[in-house]
């Protein structure tokens, strides 16, 4: 607006236009940014507000010592960056140069230099050779997987019951959800903000078919038998939602799925005669009765852990095969360019529906396990917020990449539990939000991106393609 006004009043000469006041120099802009960050950090780490005194926390935070510490830290960073930058850069370059492997390809033959550069060099060499080993030898790959599996199987025996509960009720549950969501978002490139709705449908199926809801089912089923029923239910729900909406583009699909979730949630909440509403309903636990041998899963979390692990491994096995099948390639084609995919004969609607239904049924399985582990469900377990969180887990890990999604979900679910003891519990999600922002800015591809996704991102950065089929890219070239 302002430049419009100034041009009308007087025509400034080019020189005057180019002239900058001292505070417009990048250096002082950065100073302002640093000071702002310090002030925000002081608020973030400051005291909790008090009832009936709106300004209590602000006063405390601005007069306490915290703000000075933060100002000190950020001013120091600013000073180092502005005045010692050349020296630091030189140092880094020297380390890099010394650590670089010799140009003649005789890596490993020349002894690494001493000190820090040597360390960097050895680490780089080590990871490179390890990487090579795993990539070239299938045997090592399988061995590594087997070792990982053994560790995972033994894991509950090594941690406290508290962590077992966290692993089963939260990490494991969200892992299954994230694997399913990854199919929809990561592979087929559809933006789904209502994924937990299917989770809810799965959980309520479990409660219904085991006779926990206020209404009687036609037959009462064992929980293991409920799983295929829940899968079919979620599949149908996925088709029901998907069929009319899949021709919508990314953002429209996002809001429609979000609306779908809200409708499912409100139905669970308000249709109390069927669902038990907010007061909830009970659900049976898993049990096996083979005549000669029977087992019932009780309160102890560890048996659930192994059950869950079996499900996750099974689903992963199926999905990994799917990823490299014709279906997986079709999804990739749709994600990268839907129009091109359609014109080369990919039945886009069918494959998108398939992705939707597969994702939904995975979520449904998770719902069944969740309901039977807790033995109780109510509508408040399926808030819209959870769908939003699930999506961020997938992107945080590196969407489209199974190990990335697993790792990202595990870390993000684990983090608030870990922070339980070290920060005010009320603030945990503030840190989580901050972490998401920082992570997306500095590592947009996620923790462990798939190679294809990395390439897509690179292309997108160079401006030669869209990184996902969610329509055009954000506008605004670099100014």
């Amino acid at each position: 607006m302002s430049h419009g006004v100034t041009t009308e009043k007087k025509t400034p000469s080019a020189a005057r236009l180019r002239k900058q006041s001292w505070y417009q120099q990048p250096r002082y802009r950065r100073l302002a940014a640093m000071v702002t960050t310090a002030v925000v950090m002081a608020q973030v780490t400051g005291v909790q507000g008090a009832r009936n005194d709106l300004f209590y926390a602000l006063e405390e935070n601005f007069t306490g010592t915290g703000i000075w510490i933060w100002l000190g830290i950020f001013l120091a960073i600013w000073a180092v960056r502005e005045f010692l930058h050349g020296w630091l850069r030189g140092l880094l370059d020297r380390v890099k140069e010394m650590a670089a492997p010799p140009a003649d390809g005789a890596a490993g033959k020349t002894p690494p230099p001493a000190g820090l550069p040597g360390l960097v060099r050895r680490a780089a060499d080590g990871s490179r050779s390890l990487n090579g080993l795993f990539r070239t030898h299938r045997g090592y790959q399988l061995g590594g997987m087997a070792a990982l599996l053994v560790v995972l199987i033994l894991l509950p025996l090594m941690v406290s019951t508290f962590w077992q509960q966290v692993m089963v009720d939260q990490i494991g549950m969200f892992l299954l959800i994230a694997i399913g969501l990854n199919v929809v978002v990561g592979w087929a490139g559809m933006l789904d903000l209502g994924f937990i709705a299917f989770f809810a449908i799965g959980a309520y199926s479990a409660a219904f078919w085991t006779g926990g809801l206020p209404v009687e089912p036609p037959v009462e089923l064992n929980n293991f038998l409920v799983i295929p029923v829940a899968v079919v239910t979620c599949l149908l729900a996925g088709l029901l939602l998907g069929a009319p909406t899949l021709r919508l583009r990314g953002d429209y699909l996002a809001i429609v799925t979000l609306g779908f979730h809200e409708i499912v949630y409100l139905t669970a909440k308000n249709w109390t005669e069927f669902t038990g509403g907010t007061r909830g309903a009970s659900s049976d636990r898993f049990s096996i009765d083979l005549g000669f041998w029977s087992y019932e899963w009780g309160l102890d979390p560890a048996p659930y852990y192994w059950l869950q692990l079996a499900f996750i491994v099974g689903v992963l096995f199926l999905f990994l095969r799917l990823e490299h099948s014709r279906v997986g390639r079709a999804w990739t084609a749709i994600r990268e360019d839907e129009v091109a995919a359609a014109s080369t004969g990919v039945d886009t609607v069918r494959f998108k529906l398939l992705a939707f239904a597969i994702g939904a049924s995975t979520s449904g399985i998770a719902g069944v396990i969740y309901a039977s582990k807790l033995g109780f469900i109510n509508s408040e377990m399926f808030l819209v917020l959870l769908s939003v969180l699930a999506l961020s887990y997938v992107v945080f890990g590196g969407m489209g990449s199974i190990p990335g999604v697993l790792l990202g979900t595990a870390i993000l679910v684990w983090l608030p539990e870990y922070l339980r003891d070290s920060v005010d519990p009320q603030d945990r999600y503030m840190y989580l939000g901050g972490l998401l922002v920082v992570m997306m800015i500095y590592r947009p591809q996620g923790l462990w991106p798939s190679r294809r996704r990395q390439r897509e991102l690179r292309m997108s950065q160079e401006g030669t393609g869209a990184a996902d089929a969610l329509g055009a890219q954000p506008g605004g070239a670099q100014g």
Partner: protein
Amino acid sequence: MSLSDSWDVLVLGLVLGSLYAVIAIGYTLVYGVLQLLNFAHSEVFMAGGFGGVIALTIFEPAVDPSGAQSVVYVLLGIAAGAVLGGVIAFGLEKAAYRPLRRRNAPRLVFLITAIGASFFLYNLAGKLFGRYPIAMPTMYENKTVFTVFGTSVSVTQLLIVGTALVMLAAVDVIVNRTKLGSGIRAVAQDPEVAALMGVDIDKVVSRTFVLGGLLGGVAGFLFGTNLQVEYTMGFLPGITAFAAAVLGGIGNVRGAVLGGLLLGVVEAFTVEIWSDAWRYVGAFAVLVLVLMFRPTGLLGERVGRTA
């Protein structure tokens, strides 16, 4: 339902709808220039509510304000809401979105950043100002101003609709008549060409955020006057307004207004006919139905095409 009942409900719906419309414009403007679902806009809205409370608490309204006093307090609240909303939106763009834009990050990354920023902001507000509702200090006696077809209209309702109308008109003028508006439209149509033509994209984007933030902040203040201010107050109105923007055709300013009003009215009638508990079912059912038949919303997309 009798005719006078319908009038009552319609007025309630239009009041709520005009709030949704004002918030939805914030979503739509940002979407227009960045194709970004700015999830954190609901926190801008929340900031506006707190801005109003903070300013009015500092100036401690008289016990029974009337006449000129009331006008001053209301203007003060509106200004404070707008300023805080604008500041948060400005900071959000600078700190979270600009770095992403510089590296041409894909849109999903923007979305997750927005989600993260939203989590961060509302939890920070809860930490600073407490996690319980705060009533907006009394600015005027909320009596009936006039009666239309047997439906009484209160000061708050009049204030909300009046302010919303003024702001909507102002936005329409800004987008269609001013230099900033043509910048916004140019960037919305084709950022690269706009840059080639000498539009300073960073500036346009930043100012678009601020414009949306001003509107969202004022809406937050008005919403807080009608209900109360709380750190989680942004979530539900934010989602509904987001739906309203999509319903009208996201990126389209007039569409956002239409969508907001429509959703407000649909909600009010859902409450009347069915129950408060099913409020959003009505709203989202309408959204899904409309999108099934008009996949790009009622008025179609893009800021650029409204001109």
